[in-house]
């Protein structure tokens, strides 16, 4: 699942949620954030939720393409290790 926006924030979270649910039904979650420069806590929380769902359903969860800016946000949110599986 590749995002076509540079910002993932509370303003996008509801639409993102719907798309994640659809994607989750299809199988593993591979989130390509290469176009993204800004993520806020509401979206990080949604990713954490998605990861939990994947763990429960034995599906894989991976975030790929995170640039340094996004990685820094993950770190500053204290969620870098919680999200795990962030492609280096």
């Amino acid at each position, binding site marked *: 699942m590749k995002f076509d926006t540079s910002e993932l*924030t509370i*303003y996008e979270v*509801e639409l993102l949620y719907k798309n994640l649910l659809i994607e989750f039904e299809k199988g593993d979650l591979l989130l390509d954030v290469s176009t993204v420069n800004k993520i806020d806590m509401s979206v990080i*929380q*949604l990713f954490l939720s998605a990861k*939990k*769902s994947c763990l*429960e359903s034995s599906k894989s969860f991976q975030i790929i393409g995170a640039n340094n800016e996004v990685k820094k946000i993950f770190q500053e*949110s204290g*969620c870098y290790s919680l999200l795990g599986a962030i492609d280096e």
Partner: protein
Amino acid sequence: MNEELKLFVEDVDEQLTFMENSLINMQDDGVDDESVGALFRAMHTIKGTAGMFGFDYVVSFAHIAENLLSDVRDGKVELTKEMIETFLQSKDHTQILVDLAVKNEVLDERTQAKNDELLNILKSMLPNAKKETIKIDAEVIEDEQGGEKLWHISLRLKANFFASGMDIINILSFFKILGEVKQLLCLDTKVPILQNINPTQSYIGYEILFFSGASYADIEEIFEFVIDDVELEIFLADDIDMLQVLCDKEDGLREKLIFAGFDSASRGVGKVSDEIQTKKIEVKIGIEKQSKKSSKKEVQKSFSLRVDSSKIDQLINQISEMVIANAKVTQRADVLDDNELSESATILSDMLEEIRTGIMNIRMVQVGDSFNKFKRIVHDVAKKVDKEINFEIVGGETELDKMVVEKISDPLMHMLRNSIDHGVETPLERRRLGKSPQGHVILKTYPDAGTIVIEISDDGQGLSRDKILTKAIANGLVDENNNLNDKEIYNLIFAAGLSTAEKVSDISGRGVGMDVVKRNIEALRGTVEIDSKPGKGSLFTIRLPLTLAIIDGFLIQSGNTKYIIPLEMIQECIELDARYKKEMDGNEFINLRDSMLPLLDVRSYFDEEVSQSERENIVVVRYGDYKIGMMVDELFGEFQTVIKPLGEVFNNVVGISGGTILGSGEIALIFDIPKLMEHKIKQIK
């Protein structure tokens, strides 16, 4: 720019304007504790909000300015004139930093140099014990003050946290400004799986170990904008009892803390004692205190609300349409002779008027809030031209439509600059003339007959009548054989391209401006006049309507056309009976209680047909110092008038400023009283 950033920019703008006004006031009136405290809080707020957006260079700069203000507030440093000047420059510089930060730009060389220069000056003003070292591009600010402690901060976002518009990541980044985050543990235990989550609700919590010299209050202030949207506990990390209380509240928290390296969590395991019970009570008290604080904030919140002005404009438009619709109902009730309907329409009309007044009041602002910025402009211009100016704002509490206040700002600025640059003499010259070396410029505002009057007066050299006239003749504006009085000659300076300034400066004197000033004022349905006395000074008088959308009007008829006269300008209505007609004897004057009242025959002025009306009336109107009687046929009474612009056809009709739609669907024309008076005065001459 997103909504939060817009609010940040607006807030910074307000804080900086407030700072500027306070500084200028203190420069003029001396230092007072209340203003210093308010200055500190303004800079503190800027630092706090900038920190939440991660605008590090703004935070770093504001931090030093705030420190110095803190010392001034605590009486450790005296606020000198030089320091006020530095803070004024710091205010300007902060604005530049914020603009750059919002645009996501780095500091250019010039700004960086200014930044360093100001920081050095600010730091040199700090008491020796508190000199700080600062690295602008780094996130750490070292403070040599001792007393650093290890704090434990426990934070839970309430379900509606995201609705606060704040991002917790930005808030957390603020910790780095105050000290070092030793441990940051994000708690996601309560985050549901994808199928059960409400993505707009928050479920996150944090445990933080924070090493800093900051106090409890400093740390609490990090959360001041979201204090109602979080559950917050702050205690010293070695307070095992508090930790125990915390761990007892949440299953598995202690293990998580130990696992995350919160060393203190591994101590005091299972220690539940009376002491802890006591602590629990303390915590409860603490929570009560917190909620009291929160409820206080709620009360404060209810005082102000930011609303996009376009929403108010939309409401005014809708009310305007309702007023017109109601006028139709009223008219229909009259035609049908239906008393009940007529009564209901009257009640509705009163209610509409109340709503209209209420909405209009939302738009009304005290002019002083906006005019205070002129103090800085006067201060800067005076400094530039080496003049001493005592600038006074009188009647700052007068209320005017916000849009009008904004639009009048540029013309006022121009006139003030002119007054200082060309009106007021240099201290040397003033001394020579026997005047005090300090010139006086007064900006005075007051309501008068449904208008707001703004006067700019100075005690300078006044306008040179002869120079203006010579230039006007040379430019072909007036004939050599003109019959203009002094006032009319002075008002020629509003003609395009007429500047008598001997020196063209970057402040004024290019001859462009005063015509634009007049045009801008007239675009607001206002008028401007000038009077001047050689050697004594000049007086600019601007008259503006209170509002631009709906007015209380008075409906009259002349010939076959209905007209509206702004109600506030009407002094009285009298019948033009046989006695007056006899007195007139073909002249357009009557004797009204022993004073001559010039009359304007509306019917003949607008080429109306002869009326069938049996009686004629005079409506006495006043505008400024002038009074005339308008000869009309019918008087219908008060009418809520929605001002509608007229088409280009009416552009050149002197004396009509707009139109309105009556209940019958007819159009009534709104008189431009100042223009009609001008015409009458010229006619008399």
